[in-house]
């Protein structure tokens, strides 16, 4: 089982990463000059051929064209690792295809359920923090670790629905998964702010309790407020409060290997290439600099 500490020992400063979903070569060229890693979300580059889901070859070719200049990581959306019955086998086939084509440094998924009894929810449901959910997710994480030769990370998702009866605290649940399986975490700083706004999560207490040594990747994004909710629709640059919190986490997470700026492909037109690139430069100078200053 590839543990995250063994796999990453020796990287002094976290890498800067961002998402890219294809079809915008001018943006890609600018991104590879600014980042160290590109994050691929296999679900977002799916096409089909003769009734089979495949990764769109023209997008894979785009990643291949820059793979000598940047590293690649995968971030899934639709595995549904927390479904009571079974996870999404179609997603694993996509992941197989991606691994067959590229050397990925690690891959990650959301700690969530997106499919129930074979039916897509159309959204992500956070997991109840129970022993039952812990056992289920841990079993599947261990299977993923056997299936793929690189570290696997889990990302906590925002919780919108009222809290279900729980046997663990939010940080305690993540600690239980990482200590049982050795998997790493993607800590999404904006998601924490959403949970603070929507659920009253106390972020300082959460961070004090969380085993920050398990955090391998950090996500940064900006979103929207709608009808009193803070939503994880990644349509803007990072707020100042998110950057400040990210700087604190960088100083406290000893195994952090990447800071990833996430934005939706659909928001590119709204944001513009300049704003995305400017944001990456800002994050390198602020968040990543914290690691250098230590």
């Amino acid at each position, binding site marked *: 089982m590839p543990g995250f500490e063994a796999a990453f020992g020796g990287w002094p400063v976290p890498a800067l990463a961002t998402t890219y979903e294809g079809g915008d070569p001018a943006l890609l060229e600018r991104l590879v000059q600014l980042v160290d890693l590109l994050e691929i979300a296999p*679900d977002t580059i*799916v*096409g*089909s*051929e*003769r*009734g089979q*889901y495949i990764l769109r070859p023209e997008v894979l070719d785009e990643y291949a064209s820059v793979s000598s200049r940047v590293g690649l990581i995968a971030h899934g*959306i*639709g595995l549904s690792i927390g*479904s*009571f*019955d079974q996870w*999404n086998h*179609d997603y694993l086939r996509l992941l197989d295809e991606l691994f067959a084509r590229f050397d990925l440094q690690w891959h990650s998924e959301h700690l969530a*359920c*997106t*499919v*129930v*009894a*074979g*039916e*897509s*929810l*159309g*959204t992500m*449901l956070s997991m*109840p923090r*129970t022993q*039952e*959910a812990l056992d*289920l997710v841990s079993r599947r994480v261990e299977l993923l670790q056997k299936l793929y030769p690189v570290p696997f990370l889990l990302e906590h998702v925002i919780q*919108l*629905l*009222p809290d*279900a*009866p729980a046997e663990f605290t939010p940080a305690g649940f993540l600690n239980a998964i990482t200590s049982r399986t050795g998997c790493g975490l993607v800590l999404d700083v904006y998601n924490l702010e959403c949970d603070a706004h*929507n659920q009253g999560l106390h972020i300082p207490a959460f961070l004090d309790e969380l085993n920050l040594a398990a955090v391998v990747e950090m996500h940064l994004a900006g979103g929207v407020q*709608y*009808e*009193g*909710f803070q*939503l994880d629709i990644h349509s803007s640059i990072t707020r100042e409060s998110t950057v400040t919190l990210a700087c604190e986490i960088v100083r406290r997470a000893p195994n952090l290997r990447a800071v990833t700026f996430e934005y939706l492909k*659909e928001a590119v037109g709204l944001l513009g290439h300049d704003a995305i690139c400017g944001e990456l430069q800002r994050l390198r100078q602020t968040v990543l600099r914290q690691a250098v200053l230590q």
Partner: protein
Amino acid sequence: MTQLELQQRGVLNLLKCRGTPPGDPWLRLVEGSRELAMLRKIAIWWRTFQIEAQCRQTSRLLKRLGSFEALVTDYFNRNATSPFIEELSRSFLRSLEKHNDPVVRAVSQLEYAALNAQARLPEASEILWDRHPDLVCRAIESGAELPPAEPDCLYRLRISGSQPFTLTCTRESTFEVS
């Protein structure tokens, strides 16, 4: 049934506005919550967004008719929607097969055939129009008035089921002498 199954099936039913009212205390709390209403809005918003991007002509036409959002919501509630955009789009277009507006039926079938062609799915089809197909598509694209239905005639648009995909259209008279 485990607690996890009960909760996940329960949320699916609540999201899709189906099933009997839940007995589980947490699901009952979720049922009337503003959080559930928001989760449902987000799920439908994403489907709307994806369908709009993939089925441009059909969604423009339905928006013009003022029924787009209601149809996507109805489709979401009644169907096991695919997480993959292409399959979702094809399935949504198929759901319009029996729409009572002949232009909606024809445009959605044409777009369905176009998606199949893109995905190299060989499926021959024949679409009947009550007015000139090209003029309909141009009007949707430009935002101009739709051409009126042409009495006593129909247009039969045939799409080949093998590559190269070809379209042939014939105008036929339906006028009957009594």
